[in-house]
């Protein structure tokens, strides 16, 4: 049991550590119907957003691909897409894209249901009850960690992050990669000033050049006011702490926003770094679990991927204790080592892969998503 977990097999060869029904709106106009349907089904989660109409070009494709990616995550058993009927982002096209993951998928538009929104809610509930019944029949099986994709997120960082939670996560990421799993390091603006260190770890010259080319002639201020108040004096100080959560593993390649890793091992993801956008992008890229390091504290999770919070700031671990899964501040206060905390984090990761709920899941912080539309 040490180097594996009990998960849900999926038809496309991926493995879920949760078994959710996703109810997804293709447009803002369907959001309330989506929420009403999801609240009537045990394992259903509503994914809503303020977009889906009046969108073209990248704004449209990013919205479409992120929504499809979330519903295609290995932790999802099946998905129902509900649209209004006159929007630019068609519910049936989104459903077709999700079907590529070989999950059970259905879709309809509210305007096509006799009975208005009440009829639409009844129709949605009836479809989701069927999905829920089927989902409960899926038997858990034992899998090794090659089936785990870990998202490496940090947010509300301060300078304790780079000393404690981030290097602890780096060790866990390296361990997963050594076991044949996959890790994704997002937030490219937060590699600025440390890109030469990432570039040195690239699998080949081409990837090394691609990493450096992301930063050619550009300047990024990557810090929030809270980061600066927390002691991060320059963007490069933040970046050096940030990349610590990517460990020391070889970098297999660079993926763009809305893309998925093209193999196992550690991948870099180019996306802007805003917490909710990053966590959403990681889940849409197929991460079945996310570890979120924080200094100043943050409450939220993801609709489809369990999010483990680990914090290195002793004040935050006191004030926001009810939001933190792992207290890494003992590295700061009690002379615990980074290795000690990484062992606790690895144990927690295995427990969550085996079904134990994270604090964000227990508190129901699972409905927020963010989409980068630039």
């Amino acid at each position: 049991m040490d180097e594996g977990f009990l998960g849900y097999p999926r038809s496309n060869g991926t493995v879920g550590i949760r078994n959710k029904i996703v109810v997804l709106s293709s447009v803002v106009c369907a959001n309330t119907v989506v929420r009403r349907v999801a609240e009537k089904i045990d394992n259903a989660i509503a994914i809503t957003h303020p977009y889906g109409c009046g969108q073209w070009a990248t704004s449209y494709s990013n919205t479409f691909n992120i929504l499809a990616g979330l519903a295609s995550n290995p932790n999802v058993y099946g998905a129902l897409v509900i649209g209004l009927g006159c929007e630019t982002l068609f519910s049936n096209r989104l459903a077709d894209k999700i079907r590529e993951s070989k999950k059970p998928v259905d879709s309809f538009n509210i305007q096509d249901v006799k009975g208005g929104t009440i009829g639409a809610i009844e129709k949605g509930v009836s479809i989701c009850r069927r999905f829920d019944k089927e989902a409960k029949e899926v038997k858990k099986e034992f899998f090794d960690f090659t089936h785990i994709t870990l998202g490496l997120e940090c947010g509300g960082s301060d300078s304790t992050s780079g000393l404690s939670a981030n290097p602890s996560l780096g060790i866990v990421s390296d361990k997963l990669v050594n076991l044949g799993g996959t890790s994704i390091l997002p937030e490219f603006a937060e590699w600025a000033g440390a890109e030469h260190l990432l570039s040195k770890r690239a699998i080949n010259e081409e990837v090394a050049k691609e990493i450096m080319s992301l930063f050619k002639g550009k300047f990024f201020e990557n810090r929030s006011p809270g980061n600066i108040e927390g002691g991060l004096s320059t963007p490069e100080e933040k970046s050096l702490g940030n990349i610590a959560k990517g460990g020391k593993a070889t970098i297999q390649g660079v993926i763009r926003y809305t893309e998925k890793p093209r193999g196992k091992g550690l991948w870099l993801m180019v996306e802007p770094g805003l917490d909710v956008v990053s966590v959403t992008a990681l889940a849409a890229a197929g991460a079945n679990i996310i570890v979120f390091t924080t200094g100043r504290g943050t409450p939220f999770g993801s609709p489809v991927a369990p999010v483990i919070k680990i914090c290195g700031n002793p004040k935050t671990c006191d004030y926001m204790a009810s939001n933190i899964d792992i207290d890494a501040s003992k590295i700061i206060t009690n002379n615990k080592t980074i290795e000690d905390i990484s062992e606790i984090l690895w144990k927690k990761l295995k427990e969550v892969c085996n079904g134990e709920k994270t604090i964000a899941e227990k508190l129901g912080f699972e409905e927020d998503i963010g989409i980068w539309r630039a």
Partner: protein
Amino acid sequence: MKNKYIIINSKDNCATTLEDIPQDTKIELKDKIIKINHNISLGHKFAINNIEKEDYIIKYGEIIGIATESISEGDWIHTHNIKSTYFEVTKDG
């Protein structure tokens, strides 16, 4: 006895505080005792030796910025006395 600070890499010329350190606290380093010249909050940095204007500030063994004024050992290091070198680094790199 808990450490009040951490020096992450032997090349570093700054230390990061592990608790709030009041001004005038005496801090024992490996080879000397220095006096802290400002109130320094948890997670912020102080100089472990004198740093000339335009010298690099080193943390994690890497450059995190450049001194915009001369900094004395025990001084608080932050945005008021260091700036990013990043723009210059990318232009050259």
